């Protein structure tokens, strides 16, 4: 590449040719909707942390959750706009800075996770909108010298009985002088105009014209780009490195050791990557150099032969099993899985003597700021995180150690200039923090009438919480709740039931992955209940129904999915259906998958997914999350695994870690149960049922049981 000054000249020339402005600076999510500078100049009314109203009638909603595809930049503004009686066409959004004001009201920190954004914001954002509306009405009442109780609001304006009108923009200055009300009255849900409607997403325009700014798109004046050479095996450390060739390469500014490896800092990404390839690093041996997942799973199988820590116990499952008429034992296995967001990890840092500004797509602002502050040697208040769009998250961008943020601050300390650390796809996949591999050994039995009498699940796998700042969430328990969620609350009426957990002492970094423990407990439990149904010679759907008398919401989604899928109706030759139901993140989901198996190859033709997530905000977004959840689950069921040999990960990129693609994608139908229950989650609940529904359908089609993911017919039993 050319010297930096020429690059800059070219850069400037192009930017002028393109009309200017295009390349200078960047803007955060939503800014494309109306120029930020202009919006700010007209902003006069900011009644609370969650909105601003300008004299131009624009309402900007400040969103305290990260937009990673799940639609919070639409759903949260809908909540606020509903109570504000705003004109939806004048609504914009912005990502919140890090500030305790924006903490998750339940989790006590700024975080996007646990499928909790909408339910946690449900009252928070409505109250913010209602408070602003009250002040705007009071301002109009003052201006007209009338009783505020005689006024009404609609589409961004206050009206009196004679239809005199003042827009929110016209009232903004006067409203700003008033004191926010101590208490607000929220609307009767029957009068909702936006909540519950399939309102179009606000972020679509900038995601289809190239203007949406993701972390990778961040550019600052004088910014350098770094890649880091990280150890090839977890736990290895850098012994020495030889950069004699790399440091002479074009554009290279600095090569330096950082705690996670060796940072190669250059004018551009490609220069940094080329130089990293020319770098020679000697890594210290790691205890994991002989690690293999085959051996690990063998060890898990051994562990499962002995009793584990008691998680749940009712009756005497061992005695009942010994005496039962018919019994079955099965071992289910799932592999390590990466989140594999389409946007690989990255983080840009501008570190100064007394401030540290960070631009990145993160799900974990409070934790990241605290961790970054320690490295920067600054108080947390001197560190600001600007949350960009996230090119997918799925849990990876909420890292308990803030790995990608902390590393970038370390790199910034040696760079001496604003710097963006970019992870290649291979870096991202090999960088750790996977869904843990798990084994479920299940023993179950039925009586002579085909009624289940016992169920014992033994789980073996790594804890996500142990050893992190979230260990406290284990509440002194001997097991990790994130390991057993979804089996510890098995809903089926079975008189003798045990759930036991074994810890796995493995050093692969593991983390929450879309649907966390449910991603494997849903698979194991819903496949095993299917095996029991077949043992009892009963229809798998009816068998489940009979065991759910105390779980009407499970039943409702099960019935809805079965009915919409045409359960029991004839199918074209070679096709069969499988069913699954699961409760996760306060929502209920059931899915029916329709598959055929031809020459060992599985084709999923159709998935019908029914959800009960209580009171919902945007049914369009719910449908999208169910579609995406099923595809995410199907990718894991059919194609995906991470395996290790000699400590080295065997998969590196999409050619060895395949994703479901357009030509493999089934038709997906989604249905929502209508009720007024408390809102549940939607980002994750659509994932757990897909793998068992497919696996059960494969059994129905072939008579072969799937007990290991990803599904391989050669391993079916």
């Amino acid at each position, binding site marked *: *590449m*050319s010297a930096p000054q*020429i690059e800059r000249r*070219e*850069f400037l*020339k*192009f930017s002028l*040719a*393109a009309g200017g402005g295009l*390349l200078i600076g960047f803007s955060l999510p939503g800014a494309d909707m109306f120029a930020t500078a202009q919006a700010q100049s007209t902003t006069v009314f900011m009644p609370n942390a969650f909105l601003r109203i300008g004299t131009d009638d624009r309402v900007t909603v400040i969103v305290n959750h990260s*937009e990673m*595809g*799940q*639609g919070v930049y639409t759903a949260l503004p809908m909540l606020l706009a509903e109570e504000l009686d705003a004109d939806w066409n004048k609504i914009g959004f912005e990502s919140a800075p890090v500030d305790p004001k924006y903490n998750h009201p339940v989790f006590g920190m700024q975080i996007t996770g646990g499928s909790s954004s909408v339910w946690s914001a449900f009252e928070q954002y409505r109250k913010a909108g209602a408070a602003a509306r009250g002040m705007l009405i009071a301002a109009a009442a003052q201006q007209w010298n009338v009783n505020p109780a005689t006024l009404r609001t609609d589409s961004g304006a206050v009206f009196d009985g004679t239809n005199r009108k003042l827009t929110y923009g016209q009232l903004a200055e006067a409203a700003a002088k008033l004191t926010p009300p101590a208490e607000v009255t929220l609307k009767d849900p029957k009068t909702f105009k936006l909540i519950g409607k399939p309102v*179009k*997403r606000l*972020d*679509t*325009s*900038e*995601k*289809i*014209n*190239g*203007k*949406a*700014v*993701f972390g*990778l*798109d961040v550019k600052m004046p004088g910014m350098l780009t770094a890649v880091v050479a990280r150890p090839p095996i977890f736990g290895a450390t850098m012994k020495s490195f030889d950069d004699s060739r790399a440091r002479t390469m*074009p554009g290279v500014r600095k090569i330096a050791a950082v705690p996670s490896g060796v940072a190669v800092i250059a004018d*551009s*990404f*490609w220069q940094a990557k080329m130089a990293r390839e020319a770098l020679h690093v000697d890594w210290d041996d790691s205890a994991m150099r002989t690690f293999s997942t085959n051996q690990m799973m063998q060890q898990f199988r051994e562990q499962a032969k002995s009793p584990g820590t008691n998680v749940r116990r009712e009756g005497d499952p061992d005695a009942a099993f010994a005496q039962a008429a018919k019994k079955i034992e099965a071992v289910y296995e799932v592999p390590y899985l990466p989140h*594999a*967001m*389409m*946007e*690989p990890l990255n983080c840009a840092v501008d570190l100064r003597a007394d401030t540290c500004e960070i631009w990145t797509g993160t799900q974990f602002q409070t934790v990241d700021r605290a961790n970054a502050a320690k490295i920067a040697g600054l108080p947390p208040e001197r560190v600001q995180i600007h949350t960009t*769009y*996230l*090119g*997918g998250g799925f849990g990876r961008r909420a890292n308990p150690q803030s790995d990608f943020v902390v590393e970038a601050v370390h790199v910034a300390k040696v760079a001496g200039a604003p710097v963006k650390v970019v992870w290649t*796809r*291979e870096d991202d996949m090999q960088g750790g923090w996977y869904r843990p591999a798990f084994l479920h050994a299940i023993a179950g039995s039925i009586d002579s009438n085909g009624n289940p009498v016992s169920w014992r699940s033994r789980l073996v796998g790594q804890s996500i919480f142990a050893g992190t700042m979230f260990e406290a969430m284990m509440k002194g328990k001997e097991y990790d709740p994130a390991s057993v969620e979804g089996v510890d609350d098995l809903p089926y009426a079975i008189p003798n039931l045990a759930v036991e957990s074994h810890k796995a002492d493995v050093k692969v970094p593991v983390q929450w992955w879309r649907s966390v423990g449910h991603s494997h407990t849903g698979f194991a439990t819903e496949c095993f209940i299917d095996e029991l149904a077949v043992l009892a010679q009963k229809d798998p759907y009816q068998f489940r129904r009979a065991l759910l008398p105390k779980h009407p919401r499970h039943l409702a989604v099960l019935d809805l999915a079965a009915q919409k899928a045409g359960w029991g109706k004839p199918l074209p030759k070679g096709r069969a259906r499988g069913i699954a139901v699961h409760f996760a993140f306060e929502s209920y989901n059931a899915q029916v998958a329709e598959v055929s198996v031809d020459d060992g190859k599985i084709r999923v033709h159709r998935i019908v997914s029914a959800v009960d997530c209580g009171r919902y905000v945007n049914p*369009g977004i719910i449908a*999208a999350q169910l*579609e*995406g959840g099923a*595809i*995410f689950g199907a990718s894991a069921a059919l194609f995906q695994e991470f395996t290790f040999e000699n400590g080295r990960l065997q998969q590196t*990129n*999409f*050619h060895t870690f395949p*994703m*479901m*693609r*357009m*030509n493999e*994608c089934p038709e997906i139908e989604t249905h929502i149960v209508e009720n007024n229950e408390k809102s549940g989650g939607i980002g994750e609940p659509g994932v757990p049922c897909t793998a068992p529904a497919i696996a059960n359908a494969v059994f129905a089609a072939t008579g072969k049981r799937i007990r290991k993911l990803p599904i391989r017919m050669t391993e079916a039993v």
Partner: protein
Amino acid sequence: MLSFIVNKQRVNLDVDPSTPLLWVLRENLGLTGTKYGCGMAQCGACTVHLNGEAVRSCVAPVSRAAGKEVTTIEGLSPDLSHPLQRAWIAEDVPQCGYCQSGQLMSAAVLLREKPQPTDEDIDEAMTGNICRCGTYPRIRKAIHRAAGMMTKGEAR
């Protein structure tokens, strides 16, 4: 000095000709709508048009663009008026949005070649583009919708 056209503007650049077109677009020209996903032509996030053909810019050396015309997502339309963009809005296609530039650029070539694509045509043209969020069903609907708009003469 390399010279080529990007979104109807001529650019002259002094860059290492082996640099992938993707990084020249993103870093030298500031056109960050084109995304990096895999670096080995596996995911399609970096799809742009080179003389009207869909290419994976992450593996195309910038020298391949010399004297040619490149169109990126920023050049698909100046105002979201391309039938595909209108259909993408109507079907609420994007979730995280990261892969969508590549999806649109692949779909644009498909629609030009086959104004009335079948599902099989869509499979063939779009299978090189990965979406981790799982927007495929909506992409399929949106392509059909855009084809419908073009038939009705709503195209610009």
